[in-house]
């Protein structure tokens, strides 16, 4: 393989840093200005991200005029110890360019929408500050010129998402969801950190160029370890199996947050990481198989659970889990499929943002209700929302000539092209996933907008204001057309990053796959339409075990509870009981003493020192005994 090298940034590309600085500055001003900024803060936040989008377009244009198709910018040295040097460097290349456009472009529309959506929320200024922070962190992630910088963005995104998901702290569900997101993110961080340490140990550098060029010289074990650690990191961040549960819970934040997390930032970070590290993943077939398995498993998992959910945002959330599964599948297949994964990611960015913002518009109209069993017939009342949601629906199920057709079909074809029996299994899973997607999205669409009205009595639905429908329309147009427009050009555009694209030929030809996909999608959608065209019960009925299982997130929650929650509760409980004697004993003792009962405290006090001394003594005994064991040996 040719050596990978990145040219220094010239011309407009020397302004790459400003992409990050703009939203970061917005966040800083909003946080520091305090209440003074309440009146105009949201406009500032929107303006900075808009300016960043304009800048990203300029950079994109100047990059396409360049021979080398890359520009690195070394800002300053962060750490320089012995041979290890880590710079704060940025890299603007075709891959980071498309991510920047997605983050700032879709991010800008979501910002505009949020101006209207959060209009009545007291914390709007703070919300926009975190929003800007989120965008800035995500831009650091995709623009970082080495793993260290990527990690900085990685951490920043984690913190910002924690703040945003838990934004409505008063809701206990929001607080719990924030915690869950945080835990999954920590798993992701641990994986990433250990991968970085391994790279430093094996290659002495975290620079993309050095790591990728040196990757071939690594032992199989080392490259396997790095690959699996990076995969663990990506799974945590992108809500892939077995860390899928945090993503749907993250719905507890304000809806624009869900849109931003699910469409433009955060969950795409895992896909970005794998795509960026494509050299490492391509080296090792075992790691690739692992990525493919995770992707295929997750896309089915998400789709099955999506069929059983009644909460509009949760259905969309599980559909994100499932769609990201497709992207993982694509980047796991390797070779030309890397670009397919990225194209699907971009197309998904549009339609998922549109769908989420549309669901926000519906919730706005329905007093923040989210139960699709109590919607129905909304198409008359909110035509704009209806039309744009329909665009998103057509795009995600992937009918010709809409977006998903151009982005998802090639992935399914590539899956079938995998060698041997794996091709049949993986391709079959992807095909089944497409059918399920068509079914649950049609169910969602029909139950929300068509059929009889099953509203609760106190709602008076109305169309949302123009500031919310405007972004919806733009995203709707993007949903319809993006896939078709991007499929060809983006593949060519990304060639410098992923290498030449070779059409893979496998078990089924591309035409056969297209026909099969179209058939199952139409069948799935038709089934959804037929079953739910007359509405549904207003409350869930007792159902057979497969439905019950799907409603319970396919046991994901139960596994979580058994594996993580219970042990941690036990430990926490133990620590509380030990601690209660320490702190609270003393504190309660103090109040008792003030009340005249100091004897109790005295009794407690001597007890403490004795038990502490006992702890020291037993520790000493253990230490001595352990050393004795060494002697005997």
């Amino acid at each position, binding site marked *: 393989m040719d050596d990978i090298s990145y040219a220094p940034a010239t011309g407009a590309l020397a302004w790459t840093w400003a992409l990050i600085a703009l939203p970061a500055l917005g966040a800083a001003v909003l*946080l*520091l200005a*305090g209440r003074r900024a309440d009146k105009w803060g949201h406009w500032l936040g929107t303006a900075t991200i808009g300016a960043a989008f304009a800048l990203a377009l300029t950079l994109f244009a100047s990059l396409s005029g360049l021979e080398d198709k890359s520009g690195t910018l070394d800002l*300053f*040295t*962060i*750490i*320089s*110890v*012995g041979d*290890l040097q880590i710079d704060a460097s940025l890299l603007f290349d075709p891959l980071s360019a498309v991510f920047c456009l997605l983050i700032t472009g879709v991010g800008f529309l979501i910002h505009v929408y949020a101006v209207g959506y959060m209009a009545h929320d007291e914390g709007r200024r703070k919300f926009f500050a975190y929003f800007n922070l989120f965008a800035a962190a995500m831009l650091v992630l995709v623009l970082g010129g080495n793993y260290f910088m990527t*990690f900085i963005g990685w*951490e*920043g995104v984690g*913190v910002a998402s*924690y*703040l945003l998901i*838990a934004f409505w*702290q*008063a809701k206990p569900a929001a607080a719990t969801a*924030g915690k869950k997101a*945080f*835990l999954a993110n*920590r798993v992701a*961080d*641990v994986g990433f*950190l*250990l991968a970085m*340490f391994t790279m*430093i*140990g094996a290659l002495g550098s975290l620079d993309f160029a050095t790591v990728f060029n040196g990757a071939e010289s690594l032992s199989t074990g080392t490259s396997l370890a790095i690959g699996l650690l990076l995969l663990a990191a990506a799974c945590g961040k992108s809500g892939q199996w077995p860390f899928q549960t945090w993503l749907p819970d993250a719905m507890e934040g304000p809806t624009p947050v869900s849109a931003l997390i699910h469409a433009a930032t955060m969950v795409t970070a895992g896909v970005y990481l794998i795509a960026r590290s494509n050299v490492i993943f391509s080296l090792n077939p075992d790691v690739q198989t692992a990525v493919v398995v995770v992707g295929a498993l997750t896309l089915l998992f998400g789709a099955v659970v999506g069929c059983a959910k009644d909460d509009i945002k949760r259905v969309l959330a599980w559909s994100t889990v499932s769609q990201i599964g497709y992207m993982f599948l694509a980047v796991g297949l390797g070779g030309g499929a890397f670009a397919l994964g990225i194209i699907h990611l971009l197309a998904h960015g549009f339609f998922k943002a549109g769908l989420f913002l549309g669901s926000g518009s519906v919730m706005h109209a329905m007093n923040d209700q989210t139960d699709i069993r109590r919607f129905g017939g909304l198409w008359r009342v909110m035509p704009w929302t209806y039309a744009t949601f329909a665009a998103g629906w057509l795009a995600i199920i992937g009918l010709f000539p809409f977006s998903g057709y151009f982005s998802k079909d090639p992935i399914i074809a590539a899956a079938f092209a995998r060698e041997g029996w794996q091709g049949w299994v993986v391709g079959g899973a992807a095909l089944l996933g497409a059918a399920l997607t068509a079914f649950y999205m049609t169910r969602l669409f029909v139950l929300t907008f068509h059929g009889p009205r099953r509203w609760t009595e106190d709602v008076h639905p109305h169309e949302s204001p123009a500031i919310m429908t405007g972004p919806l329309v733009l995203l709707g147009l993007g949903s319809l057309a993006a896939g078709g427009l991007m499929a060809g050009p983006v593949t060519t555009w990304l060639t410098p990053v992923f290498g030449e694209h070779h059409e893979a030929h496998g078990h089924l030809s591309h035409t056969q796959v297209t026909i099969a996909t179209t058939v199952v999608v139409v069948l799935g959608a038709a089934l959804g339409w037929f079953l739910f065209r007359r509405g549904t019960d207003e409350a869930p009925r007792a159902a057979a075990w497969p439905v019950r299982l799907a409603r319970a997130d396919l046991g994901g929650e139960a596994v979580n509870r058994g594996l993580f929650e219970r042990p941690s509760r036990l*430990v926490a409980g133990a*620590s509380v009981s*030990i*601690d209660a004697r*320490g*702190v609270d004993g*003393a*504190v309660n003792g*103090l109040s008792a*003493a003030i009340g005249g009962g100091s004897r109790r405290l005295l009794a407690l*006090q001597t007890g*403490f*020192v004795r*038990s*502490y*001394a006992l*702890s*020291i003594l*037993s*520790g*000493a005994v*253990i*230490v*001595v005994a*352990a*050393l*004795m064991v*060494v*002697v005997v040996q």
Partner: protein
Amino acid sequence: MNEVQIDWAGLAPMIIVFAAAFGGLLVEATVPRARRLAVQAGLAVAALLAAFTAVVLIHDKSSAAFSIEGTGLGSVVLDGPGLFLQGTIALLSVVAVLLLAERRTTRGGDFVAEAAVVADSAADKAQQREDGATEIFPLTLFAVVGMMMFVVAGDLLTMFVALEMLSLPLYLLCGLAKRRRLISQEAALKYFLLGAFASAFYVYGMAMLYGFAGTVDLAGINQAGIASNQPRLLLYIGVAMIAVAMLFKAAAVPFHMWTPDVYTGAPTPVTALMAACVKVAAFGGLLRVFNVGLESSAWDWRMILMVIAIATMLGGAIFAVTQRNIKRLLAYSSIANAGYLLIGVIALGDAVGSTMFYLAAYGFTVIAAFAVVSLVRDGDEEATHLSRWAGLGKKSPGTAAVFTILMLALAGLPFTSGFTAKFGLFAAALGAGEVGLVVVGVVSSAILAFPYLRVVVLLWLNEPAPDAPTVNLPSPMAGAVVAAGVAATLILGVAPGFLIDIADQASTFLNT
């Protein structure tokens, strides 16, 4: 005649602080009460800065302070790590002394004159109304001399003297809190009893090692570890006992039990001093004992120290998760950090530089954190219960922002010193082959980040209670402490290179 040559320049840092401590006692006797605070604090800060300058001037020294006809005696060894840590202790003490001198947060300061008065008696109430005692400054200086001596002590006996010298003033300082007297006295007594217990272990271990090596000199013990004919049993018991005593000071599990109680009970400025400076001294001693004295027997003690390190990292982090009191939270985090530092001790030579960098970085962050704790008040008392901190970002955004930076640093997020320090330490340990410990360390810091970030959320996203605590500003001294700590935290996070270089260059122990 065998005349002992004394390297006065090398001893100058300790002599300056020692002299200032005695000077402080004279100030108590001669200067009128109204001016004592200014004189005492000024004297202490000046002496510590002078000591720091003296350390800088002799920074490339690598020799014994006492020698006979050119042959060094082991008692005081001036070498890279020793001097680096002396400098760190001097600088951190300057910051801590400023915090001790703060009189704005509580009228008359955080201290009473007499520790032993029965709590809540009439005499106690009377002394609570008076201005605080200024004896705390000479006491602190004595403790600081002890710490500075501890990190350069080259034999076990000198080390023991230093250990007692740093401990005794601290026991007393713990009992001087003006508010919550009973808890403060309880903390002092606990710390004293357990400290004495630990000292007994130390002396016993020293006797064993003497029996084994025929010397208390660390380098001699190392030699004996290779060549001695004495039963190795003596060595093992000796190592174990010495380790127990030092791990007690360092607050490693299972010798950590005193930490939360003492940290909570002691006056916050004293807690800051303990969390920063004593930690530096304790690990300086551990580094020296294991690198110089016990390197040859590394295979014997490695395993047990690894188990302790793992228990400390996980124990500290897990206990921290359930804490509801900010001082206890910081106490448990200090325990977990002791675990990370132990990795540096176990990794021996290669990790000395990054361990010392970690100590300096952590010290500044933790002092600033305790300074903020001392500023957030419910009337006269510190509002230490976390629920009282809810919504602080609304009422005092500046303070909340500063505390957020400190919490993120403790959680080890990038662009703070917490991250660079952990990164450097773990990378060095990995280089030394400690894969398992590093994995546990990363996992533990992942757990530990949770309580910190919960505090951040509490500060910014929760609604403040109607009777929320006030932040006492302007408090010039504590403000300066916070500013210094945050500045160090950010500088060492963004451009840590210079200090890493200094620490690396200073990482070779004199081994004779």
